[in-house]
């Protein structure tokens, strides 16, 4: 039974805030403290800002897009953006191979990306967290079974698996969301499982057992709330992964079906002409890049401000 008296610097600082709070009456609750840290976190603020703008575009696309993204105008096809010779103010970013307004399609594309990202990450989260809790908390053969699933999932190249599934099930937004979600739960699982394994040994779980809580109650009411921060971080990062996956799938022709505007699909369609109308490839690519980087910044930021007592 050991006592730690020498403190590492991080513990010291953690301790410091505690002592701080003691003196001023009551200090910040964990949530408030995280918010306070968030205010000083540049990455988080930038990511959140960009994301907010993109979310507004996605949500209010019908009002913000200058044209109907599906409206075909064959005689006006393949117009360049306004700053290129031959471009027009009518179509700021030009038109695609069917004469549809590129700007409008990019704006609507944000919608698709976000829907897929959030949808798939949610499904992955539900699967991963449930399995992780089960495996971590109950252990035994359940853990073995889950471990088997994980090995299956990891051993098969996930992109190929997704492609095969979408290929045979058929392309639609729902299918893409479900398939990406159903193949991206390992990260949740691993983190949930190991956190649960760790938490399971902590005394507050024993205390709950001692007060007569059932195992299910403990898993859901005692263990799960402690995972929220970590799950939130994974969720954001998985949203980014799902968005990239969707784009890749669509690029390979097995993602979002035409004519729905998906950035990956737009890149694939523009690829044919990429040496001559490079904006067809570059514009959706940059949109994708900005969205994903914003989400990643947000995710990293959330981790930095919520997961304390951890070096870096």
């Amino acid at each position, binding site marked *: *039974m*050991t*006592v*730690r*008296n*020498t*403190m*590492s*610097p991080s513990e*010291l*600082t953690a*301790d*410091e805030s*505690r*002592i*701080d*709070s*003691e*003196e001023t*009456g*009551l*200090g*910040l*609750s*964990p949530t408030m403290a995280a918010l306070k*840290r968030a205010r*000083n976190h540049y990455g988080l603020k930038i990511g959140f800002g960009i994301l907010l703008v993109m979310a507004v575009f996605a949500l209010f696309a019908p009002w913000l897009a200058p044209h109907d993204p599906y409206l075909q105008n064959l005689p006006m096809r393949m117009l360049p953006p306004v700053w290129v010779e031959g471009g027009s103010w009518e179509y700021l970013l030009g038109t695609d191979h069917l004469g549809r307004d590129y700007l409008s399609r990019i704006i609507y594309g944000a919608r698709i990306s976000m829907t897929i990202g959030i949808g798939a990450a949610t499904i992955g989260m539900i699967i991963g967290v449930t399995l992780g809790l089960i495996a971590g908390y109950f252990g035994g053969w359940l853990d073995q079974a889950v471990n088997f699933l994980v090995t299956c999932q990891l051993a098969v190249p996930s992109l190929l698996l997704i492609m095969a599934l979408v290929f045979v099930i058929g392309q639609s937004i729902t299918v893409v969301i479900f398939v990406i979600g159903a193949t991206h739960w390992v990260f949740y699982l691993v983190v949930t499982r190991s956190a649960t394994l760790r938490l399971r040994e*902590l*005394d*507050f779980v*024993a*205390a*709950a*057992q*001692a*007060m*007569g*809580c*059932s195992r299910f*109650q403990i898993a859901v009411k*005692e263990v799960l*709330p*402690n995972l*929220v921060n970590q799950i939130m971080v994974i969720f954001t990062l998985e949203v980014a992964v799902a968005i990239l996956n969707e784009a890749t799938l669509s690029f390979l022709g097995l993602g979002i079906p035409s004519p729905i505007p998906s950035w990956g699909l737009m890149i694939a369609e523009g690829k044919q002409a990429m040496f001559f109308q490079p904006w067809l490839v570059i514009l959706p690519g940059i949109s994708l890049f900005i969205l994903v980087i914003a989400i990643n910044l947000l995710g990293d930021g959330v981790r930095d401000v919520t997961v304390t007592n951890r070096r870096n």
Partner: protein
Amino acid sequence: MSTASILDIQDLSVDIPTDSSTLHAVRGISLELKRGETLGIVGESGSGKSMTALALMNLLPPAARRQASCIDFDGSDLTHATERELASKIRGQRIGMIFQEPMTSLNPVYSIGRQLKETMTLHRKVSDAEAEKRAIYLLEKVGLPDPASRLKQYPHELSGGQRQRVMIAMALMNEPELLIADEPTTALDVTIQAQILHLLRDLQREFGMSMILITHDLGVVSRAADNIAVMYAGDIVETGKTAEVLENPCHPYTKGLLECVPGYQGHSQQRLGAIPGIVPAMTGEISGCAFASRCPRAADVCRTTNPPTKKLHQGRYFVCHEPEIEQGEGTAEQPVGSERTGKTDCRGAEDILTVDHVSCTFSVRRGLFGKRKPLQALDDVSLTLKKGEVLALVGESGCGKTTLTRTIMGLQAPSTGFVTLNGQRIGNLPPMERARMIQPIFQDPYSSLNPRKTIGEIIAKPLVVHGIGSTQEQHQQVRKMMELVGLPSRVFNSYPDQLSGGQRQRAAIGRALILNPEVVICDEPTSALDVSVQAQILNLLLDLRDELDLTYLFVTHNLSVVQHMADRVAVMYLGEIVECGERDQVMSSPKHPYTHALMDSALSISPGESVPDPGLSGDFPNPMNRPNGCPFHPRCPIAGQQCREQAPGPELIDNTLVQCWKAKTAGSQLKP
């Protein structure tokens, strides 16, 4: 500045910048260490004692900033030495260092031999063979049997005590002039602690080293140090010869600290003294005496002006304004009727809990390629707990204490045997019913409270689970309980992170008691706390017992706490109860050689006395390979043929249950 001094520190400060402000970990201390002497730096957690040690060799964490007007080591000033100079000339060569955590302080991927040898080959042009010779010599010196073959072993193959011995040998490879030991025994069991301290003392004499011994344990420092420096909040508040400081403390903090130690005052039945409040934040501008907020004697001047250093004689200083002592106001929690009210005579009381021949076996896999092996955590344990008593369960880590408490609470099914609570088998009790009868208090107040729940929620949780009362009533009951355990009502909506260790332990106690259980299992409830807080909690537990008519099973390794709390004592060794009886009986005339060694190892505060050698050979064995016969025989100084071959059964001697073949004769053999 005496010529005999090897180390002279003037005005050393360590600052650690944090997100919002700067933490002043060490605030301008001055120290002097004479050649060949031992200086004990003592203080509670966060007092800056370890920072001081690290600052000497500039091993501070990267963010920390060190300042000193002078760090004079044997005539050379280390203040301005570069990292490279320190590394090549001082560290590991002239100053050796031993750290607190032997489990993590050795590199797990390299062999002991390599780690020992490189210390030497790094600094001197010596051959590998020479270094190996030295390593073997030192390993033998630090008491590791078969040193040559040890060199090939890896840290994880050694026990904690063995690793600490290796650490010591490593620090001595280059015959340093100064040895800094930072809490060298805190992580070790009592018997090992005594052995290590004894060893350090011997080696220091033999090699003529000077030593800085950093510890929070006043008992340790009283035995092992020539001089003592008491640190509080980054400052040395009192310093002097060990005996003088401990016998005649001048600073109110030193006084308070000593009063907190169970057994110090000699009257085990008295309430402990306690220092109210907690250490203030050492951030930002600090004015006045840092101890003022907790000092019973504090006057206005203490809060505004930095206290002066007062010198009693050469080498004996303390830092205090020394305000007038107001009459009738002692230490804040100084008891009024200090006699413990209900020292119950339990002999006639009914048995509330019986543990009947319980054994517990786990199967454990070690390593990636390992096979599962059985681990016998409990071997035929029988115990009874009488209503209203405090039964102390004593034993070293790994002896099965925790398994036993979990089994008693019904959280762990025994392999054989059974536990009876109020006449009912605990395995057959529905969890809800069981919970109303028996509740635990855990060791670590940091992990025993769910960090995501408020204190109010945590204490109310048992009520919610059991569906007792409306939300309104539950809140009322929680507030009443908080008052009872001494928690301010404003923390109702706070999270555990916002509370100090002592407050958390109070909340844990509140949660355990809110269902009004009859039996409370206290699993080392104070071992994670500082001594001043420990006193508060021990007092609280005793008060609650009297008030609520509780029965405690009190698990601890701290014998002074046992002395203070227990009615009866059960001593555990390797999953067995080797001795069990009335406290005084067991503690003053132990029958089992292990109990005897334990009592010997306990370091009470007695300056002048040296560290006893508990006379136990070897380390606490690995429960994975229990020895045949009496499990204690490999370490037992009086073991005979019978002990090696046959396990002894329980035997009743003088009302004490003992498991030893030589119990009847042991007394005479063990007291030379």
